[in-house]
């Protein structure tokens, strides 16, 4: 599986991650046919401490889905940051994952964004598959 990011998308996600550091950031990925055209920042509304958690409110989810379909695209998934943690999904990510969505994770170390990875839930919910990320087509 390959997820392609339009030019500027990776940069926007990384920028968001360092902006909210040491808290986690989150946002929606919008595009179509495996190409992310835009990343939309969303508020992190977790009540469990934003250093280690993020949550997208249902109304923000609906807004993201509406925005995607209005533009003739799809909601392809979500991104979030792992402050001072590797860009790999946690058990918590796995427990809360939805099928077919791409989950982009950016690791941010000391405020500096590093790796960007993308993951998809396996059909049986047992684990994530890492997706191949292609960065920056025009």
């Amino acid at each position, binding site marked *: 599986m390959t997820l392609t990011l339009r030019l500027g998308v990776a940069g926007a996600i990384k920028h968001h991650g360092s902006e909210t550091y040491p808290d986690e950031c989150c946002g929606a990925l919008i595009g179509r046919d495996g190409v992310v055209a835009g990343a939309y920042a969303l508020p992190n509304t*977790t009540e469990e401490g934003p250093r280690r958690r993020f949550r997208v409110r249902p109304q923000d989810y609906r807004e993201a889905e509406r925005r995607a379909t209005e533009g003739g695209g799809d909601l392809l998934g979500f991104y979030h940051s792992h402050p001072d943690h590797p860009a790999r999904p946690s058990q918590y990510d796995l427990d809360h994952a939805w099928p077919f969505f791409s989950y982009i994770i950016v690791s941010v170390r000391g405020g500096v964004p590093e790796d960007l990875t993308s993951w998809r839930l396996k059909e049986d919910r047992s684990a994530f598959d890492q997706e191949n990320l292609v960065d920056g087509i025009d």
Partner: protein
Amino acid sequence: MNTIHIPTPLRPFTDKRESVEVNGNTVGELLADLAKRYGGLRKHLYADDGKLRSFVNVYLNDEDIRYLEREQTPVKPGDSLSIVPSVAGGAQVVTPPSGRGTSGPTSHAGVDQDVLPALSQDEIKRYSRHLIMPEVGIDGQRKLKASSVLCIGAGGLGSPAAMYLAAAGVGRIGIVDFDVVDFSNLQRQLLHGTPDVGRSKLASAKDRLHALNPHVHVETYETSLSSENALKLFEPYDVILDGTDNFPTRYLVNDACVISGKPNAYGSIFRFEGQASVFATQGGPCYRCLYPEPPPPGLVPSCAEGGVLGVLPGIIGVIQATESIKLMLGIGEPLIGRFLIYDALKMRFRELKLRKDPECPVCGTHPTVTKLIDYEQFCGIRPESQAQAAGAAGNEWEITPVELKRRLDDGDDLFILDVREPNEYQINQIPGSTLIPLGELPRRYQELDPDREIVAQCKVGARSAKAVDYLRSVGFVKIKNLRGGILEWIDTVDPSQPKY
């Protein structure tokens, strides 16, 4: 009849429909009807206990059912239901830094500052160049004194690694080996000198390390590492330093490190190239994340077959020692998730990124290997008795040099495949033969014509037997191995050629 709005990630289960018509009198019944019609989405809506998952929000006409009567909420005709994903996640909850610290994932396990051993006057003088660096200092040196490394093998990699670890003041160094010093070892295995030839490597290593640093305890284990003894041998050590030269032991060391939770300071060498990494740390990848399975037996030659530049293990072994020391001190950036490749001819270091594979059979989320297995079998190396049996039955796949000569003289159309290395081919060759070194065969076998009869040949017939096995495995049937290789060819057919 009511409508349920389906969110994007569940639409692949509903034939891409954004909304679906369902029947029922309550919210729970509508959802159950949905799951009945589209079974694929059931496990994403319901947990194993049959309850709605916590991240599944359900709205009845824009009202969260949690604020109504939840799944018992009655529905009227025309009411519409929406499933709205709650999207959540986050980094792993950090476990408090007990032993395995945050800076180095394996800072010295379980060492309490108060119980660290003191340094004697002699030791303070000896380690003074360490002590004046704040990254080590007195406390760091005491940590090293309290820590321990087990070297698997006292050969090319184990020699420089053990010598530097001893000189640096690592308190306890274990060595596993069962070999005897041979003249051919001296070109690179600096633990052993010319007078040691014929001695056990362990005895020679112990003498050498004690001469370097009498403060270090050297424990020796005269045995070959096996699935039966590995976990017990690893248990009393903080870091395992893999200096092995074969795949079965390499996989055994890796798996035993993962199972016992010990970091593996890995290195390997071949000809002019070396590799190093740190495997099996908490959260880091292991050797199997990189190579889940070994190569087919025989396709990757050993140093005994392919040779090795004598100084190469000096570089790689010292990198392994460096990483061990960093892990035990908990300083710097360990070689975790990074695979270092060193090319001595080009004098270049390259680094590959390594990721922990969630599918890894040993360290993944759902490991299938949870205890040590038979690694000889795993690597496709058959016990000797079976190999002999196969050899006896395998005569139809063999041809003698005399028979080959007769058939060539008869004008039979035979393709002679020489699987040696080019520099061997320069020394002698069977007229008309074509050179494809054994290691290149997997990517070049398509150059061969499967309809033509092939005779594979090497120096003594061992590598070409592997070539025959390999070619048979990819579908060749008209193939034979030249028994005894070119040496028997020279002895029985063409004595004019030089032997090596």
